[in-house]
């Protein structure tokens, strides 16, 4: 440990460890499952408050830093107005030591500070208690204390004015000839409490870890919103793509730090006067792949008509799902309840097609257990869930021949001199097959179906509509399908 620990040292210097006893310190071999000793890392970034910034922006900066610190620790706390705390004791082994954590921390924060045109230096300290870490960081000490026993010594050199105390109390200390914390520790503790109040002693106890100091973990709402102002108005769609990429990078960092995946993206291009152009992308499956998002957005943007130059773009995501890697069942077979499980490889293509052509343009076909031919086969936009879908056609229709093309609406057939015509005269090959629906069905049909062929060689599925009880005349012949 240096003899002058609290002279303003630059943050770029490596942290100095305080009397780390290698044999008994953090490298001590853990016996069995032991909870690692907590180590709180504190940051002090006075530059955040020194520069005048709009309130909202200040808040956004604090949150952005706290979000990126989430990559280092599960517990991050914003210590307003300019400090941060995060727990690294539990992640030290994962990252491979405090120096590695520190390197990552600098790699995270320096580009951020640089992008806000703020000085890149900041103060940091780590110790077993959050209060002590924060105190050390705010005193610009840049100290690393691994063990609680060493805290007293490390804090002893801190001037009393670094403590968060009212001005009157600070003066009181000065007048009593007490300048550094060690001066306080030389006094009997009950006398300190009597002279300077319980709030002060509690603060000291918290620093030393005798009293727990609760830390309020930062948890931002699971809403992603990012805005990017263009340096100039952009008219060319291709020129929008780099901006979109930046927004997606922010989104993917957000998703990775929270172990989330997005299911719905909302991108808006802001025009100077004519409002906004909005692009919505619904994802079939929650995803967090940057390349996939980019492909979808690019496809949509290329097909977009921009009414005016773009001055800003905003990406908003409010629907998330927990990130899950793709699982397979033990046997290697797809899970039976998800009929689209095996189309996973195809999903990026289908989403790209949907992004450009619209959701209803990509369709899947289904069978239904119905007698009425129109309802036995269904087509629905891909991904739409149907209440009851049979993988196989109704048993009744299994043995009968059915056409591969079914017309959406039966086509009336021309009749001349008792003959039916479709391109040319028809010859019946087989039939009739009677198809009737139940009397309670919404669409009551009574039809005799035949297979017919015309001179062009087309095999056609035609029917003769039988008169219903309340209609006495036959309704004629219709073409319903083609055996292509």
């Amino acid at each position: 440990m240096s003899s002058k620990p609290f002279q303003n040292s630059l943050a770029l210097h490596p942290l100095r460890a305080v009397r780390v006893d290698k044999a008994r310190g953090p490298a001590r071999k853990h016996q069995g499952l032991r909870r690692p000793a907590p180590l709180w890392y504190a940051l002090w970034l006075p530059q955040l408050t020194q520069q005048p910034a709009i309130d909202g922006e200040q808040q956004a900066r604090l949150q952005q830093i706290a979000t990126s610190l989430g990559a280092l620790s599960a517990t991050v706390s914003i210590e307003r107005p300019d400090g941060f705390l995060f727990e690294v004791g539990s992640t030290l082994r994962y990252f491979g030591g405090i120096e590695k954590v520190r390197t990552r921390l600098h790699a995270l924060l320096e580009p951020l500070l640089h992008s806000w045109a703020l000085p890149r230096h900041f103060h940091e300290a780590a110790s077993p208690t959050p209060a002590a870490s924060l105190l050390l960081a705010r005193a610009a000490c840049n100290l690393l204390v691994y063990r609680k026993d060493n805290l007293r010594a490390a804090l002893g050199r801190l001037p009393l004015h670094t403590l968060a105390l009212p001005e009157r109390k600070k003066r009181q200390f000065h007048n009593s000839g007490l300048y550094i914390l060690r001066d306080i520790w030389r006094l009997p503790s009950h006398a300190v409490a009597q002279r300077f109040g319980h709030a002060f002693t509690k603060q000291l106890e918290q620093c030393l870890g005798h009293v727990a100091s609760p830390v309020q973990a930062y948890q931002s709402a699971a809403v992603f919103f990012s805005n990017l102002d263009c340096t100039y108005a952009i008219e060319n769609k291709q020129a929008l793509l780099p901006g979109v990429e930046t927004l997606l990078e922010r989104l993917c960092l957000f998703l990775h730090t929270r172990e989330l995946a997005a299911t719905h993206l909302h991108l808006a291009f802001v025009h100077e006067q004519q409002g906004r152009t909005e692009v919505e992308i619904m994802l079939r499956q929650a995803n967090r792949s940057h390349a996939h998002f980019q492909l979808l957005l690019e496809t949509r943007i290329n097909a977009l008509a921009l009414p005016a130059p773009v001055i800003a773009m905003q990406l908003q995501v409010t629907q998330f799902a927990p990130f899950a890697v793709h699982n397979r069942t033990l046997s290697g077979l797809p899970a039976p309840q998800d009929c689209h499980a095996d189309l996973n490889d195809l999903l990026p293509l289908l989403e790209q097609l949907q992004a450009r052509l619209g959701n209803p343009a990509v369709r899947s076909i289904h069978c239904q257990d119905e007698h009425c031919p129109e309802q036995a086969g269904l087509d629905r936009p891909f991904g739409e869930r149907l209440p009851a879908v049979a993988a196989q056609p109704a048993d009744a229709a299994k043995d009968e021949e059915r056409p591969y093309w079914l017309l959406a609406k039966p086509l009336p057939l021309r009749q001349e001199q008792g003959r039916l015509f479709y391109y040319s005269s028809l010859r019946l090959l087989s039939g009739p097959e009677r198809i009737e629906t139940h009397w309670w069905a919404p669409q009551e049909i009574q039809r005799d179906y035949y297979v017919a062929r015309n001179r062009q060689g087309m095999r056609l599925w035609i029917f003769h509509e039988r008169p219903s009880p309340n209609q006495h005349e036959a309704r004629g012949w219709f073409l319903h399908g083609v055996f292509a």
Partner: protein
Amino acid sequence: MQTPDPDHRLRSLLDSPNLWRGSEHYLAATTQAGGHFPGLPTGFAALDTSLPWRGWPANALVEIITPLWGTGELQLVLPLLRRISMAGKSALWFSPPCIPYAPALANAGVDIARMIIVTPPPPQVLWGIEKALQNKACALVLAWPGHLSGKHIRRLQLAASTGQTLGILFHHRNIRHSASVLRLRAEAEEDALALTVLKARGSYRHDRIRVPWSSHE
């Protein structure tokens, strides 16, 4: 220096890709070791034997030309659809003249969960077909693209070979000098589908094959 064996020299010359050879030799060249042909069986023995790949060419574009829709062209690809869906792969149908009827396909043994129908507005059809052909996850593309020119076909053929996807285009017009690997004309006859091989890359044979209607089961 030892003089190389003349047979060996001939063989090395024949193995050289720079040397163009007639159909029979091409066939021999495309046949992999062990007599395995690279094509996907069509399900019709007569058609298989008259194609150089002994089936549909893999990773290529095929044109099926019919005078009208519904003259049996779908039955021609049904065995292929059955094989592909049973292998757990998917097929995309672009702009079919009607929505395929699910019960009929399911009866024919096709897994309908793997059949995806795409109905883009007409100007976007070719874009969609190209994207699907370029995608390796898609095994088969069936497309009814409407208007086609030689330039379109060349581009789609390129997409099919990069995406290793079999693309089958159905249309009415025989475009001469098209870049597709296989071009068939399909006409319905009384009891069979008559196929004429208009072009098969690597073969001079212009066979006329009759596929009986009943053979699709």
